[in-house]
């Protein structure tokens, strides 16, 4: 269990070491290089720790205090799956930042904030205590607010402020809901509250707190009536941060926390979320069709794809949850890849307008190729991971007696395909504009990072094989399905 401590300790320590170096070292080049090295080593180590810890479940009492008194760190299948995803994507994003962040002035501040955001996310995934969940959500959110406004241009600041107000309201809701739970049961430990709720009746106060939680996490996950901040905030951030935000942050803070609290603590019925998922799928993709800004289009697709995940999880059947979680992993991989690609294009071209691109496959073959793979994955084409997860979700819809949902999901998938054909046609195929003839391929580290993600896009489709699935996905599904059985994690 000690290994999970390091997932929080390493990025937090790294963030402050980089901050201290930033203050102590005078020369800017030395500062940049050392922060590059430190951040990449830390994320590499964390990806290593997270990827090797499948199957190591348990609970750890911090400070040696037994559970209802002290706080604890708890890991089950679901959190381990999420940890592996988050830390892998984080490693790719930091690798990518080595070259990409050269265009900004203060690289070391960026790494500090990035590692703090990572601390927050790992903390959310590992926390076994409701108030600590809130604190880690806030750590991740506050650093992401700062990262969204990192370029300090007018649009970025506006997006950051919008995100901050929405996120602030969500956090206040979470705090209020936690306070209500504490007033009802007198404990903050998630396992103990789960036990207490399963024996008590559903009072109006508990229902109110569940409502607050759902509203708050819907804002954080950008499910459709609460999505207003996402299409502004995600494009405004630097590309690796967009990849982190769209790829893993909305899932950790939104979907993971929501699933954990609704399914494991309240053990409540989640079918109310299915219509929200459907609305997100359709509206997200319809809004995306009209966009010409590359990153904005991807951001709307995030709303749509999160709808698939919510739809899968809200079916409540083992197959539906399997599909939802599988799509969660897949979406974090291909959406980060798409955002990193858009960053590479913007790095060389200086624009994100689709109308000004064209024929980029000739000058940027790696970026073009990987983004082609990612586009096919997100649209659900057979050899890639997106196909399998969408297929499982659609099958689960039919199996659980909601063929209408399945129809909408298929329609959303077709619209996604058409939208990404548009991206491919405008940006990477077609005629190369005369002024873009001199453009080179993206720098080495950026290319390595996108190639890793593209390989993962194909490799994760192997997760449907029963042998791999039983190690990686099945424990997560079991953990979600076990409902109030989560309480068993504390001995």
């Amino acid at each position: 269990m000690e290994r999970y401590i390091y997932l929080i300790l390493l990025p937090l320590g790294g963030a402050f070491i980089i901050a201290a170096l930033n203050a102590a070292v005078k020369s800017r080049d030395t500062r940049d290089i050392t922060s590059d090295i430190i951040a990449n080593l830390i994320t590499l180590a964390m990806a290593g720790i997270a990827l090797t810890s499948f199957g190591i479940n348990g609970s750890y009492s911090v400070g040696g205090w037994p559970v209802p008194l002290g706080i604890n760190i708890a890991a089950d299948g679901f959190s381990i799956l999420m940890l592996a995803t988050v830390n892998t994507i984080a490693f790719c994003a930091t690798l990518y930042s080595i070259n990409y962040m050269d265009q900004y002035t203060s690289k070391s501040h960026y790494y500090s904030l990035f590692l703090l955001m990572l601390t927050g996310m790992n903390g959310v995934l590992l926390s076994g205590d409701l108030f600590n969940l809130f604190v880690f959500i806030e750590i991740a959110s506050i650093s992401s607010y700062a990262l969204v406004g990192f370029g300090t241009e007018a649009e970025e600041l506006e997006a950051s402020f919008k995100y901050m107000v929405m996120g602030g309201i969500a956090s206040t809701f979470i705090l209020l809901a936690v306070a209500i739970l504490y007033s009802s049961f007198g404990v903050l430990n998630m396992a103990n509250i789960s036990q207490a709720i399963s024996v008590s009746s559903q009072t109006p106060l508990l229902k109110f707190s569940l409502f607050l939680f759902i509203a708050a996490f819907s804002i954080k996950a950008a499910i459709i009536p609460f999505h207003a901040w996402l299409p502004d905030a995600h494009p405004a951030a630097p590309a690796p941060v967009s990849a982190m935000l769209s790829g893993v942050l909305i899932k950790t803070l939104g979907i993971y926390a929501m699933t954990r609290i609704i399914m494991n603590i309240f053990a409540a019925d989640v079918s109310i979320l299915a219509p929200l998922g459907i609305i997100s799928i359709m509206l997200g993709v319809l809004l995306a069709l009209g966009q010409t800004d590359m990153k904005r289009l991807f951001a709307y697709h995030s709303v749509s794809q999160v709808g698939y995940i919510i739809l899968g999880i809200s079916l409540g059947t083992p197959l539906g949850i399997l599909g939802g979680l599988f799509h969660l992993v897949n979406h974090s991989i291909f959406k980060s890849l798409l955002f990193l690609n858009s960053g590479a294009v913007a790095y060389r071209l200086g624009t994100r307008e689709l109308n000004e691109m064209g024929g980029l496959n000739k000058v940027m073959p790696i970026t073009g190729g990987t983004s082609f793979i990612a586009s096919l994955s997100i649209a659900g084409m057979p050899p890639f991971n997106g196909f399998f997860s969408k297929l499982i979700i659609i099958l689960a819809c039919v199996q659980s007696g909601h063929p209408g949902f399945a129809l909408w999901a298929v329609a959303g998938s077709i619209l996604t395909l058409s939208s990404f054909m548009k991206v491919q046609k405008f940006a990477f195929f077609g005629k190369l504009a005369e002024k873009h003839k001199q453009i080179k391929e993206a720098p080495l580290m950026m290319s390595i990072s996108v190639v890793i993600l593209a390989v993962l896009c194909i490799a994760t489709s192997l997760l449907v094989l029963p042998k791999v699935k039983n190690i990686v996905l099945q424990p997560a599904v079991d953990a979600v399905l076990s409902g109030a059985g989560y309480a068993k994690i504390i001995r």
Partner: protein
Amino acid sequence: MIYVMCLALFVVGLYGICCKKNLIKIILGFIIMDYAVNLFIILIGYRKNGIAPILDKTMDVNKFALSSVDPMPQAIVLTAIVIGLAVTALMVAVCVRIYERYGTFDITKIRKLKG
């Protein structure tokens, strides 16, 4: 009754965020909302005629536990206040930068983004 007043304060803050057009007033609304929640948490641990949860040499532990207020919400509120401080400071900093760029605090004039 006093819980209802807490909720009223919360709603006042929410109203400020939703309906005001000035950035500073939005921030104030956020602060009010934050403090309503903090007040609520403090009230959870309150006990009528309770004593401060500080153990002294002269006190008996059992008697102390019967008469002191719950220290846990106070610890929570302290943390929540620190988090609120961080968010508020960041909000104000961004707000100042927005003023630099746009020259106004009016959100109806800050409209470079569509969504």
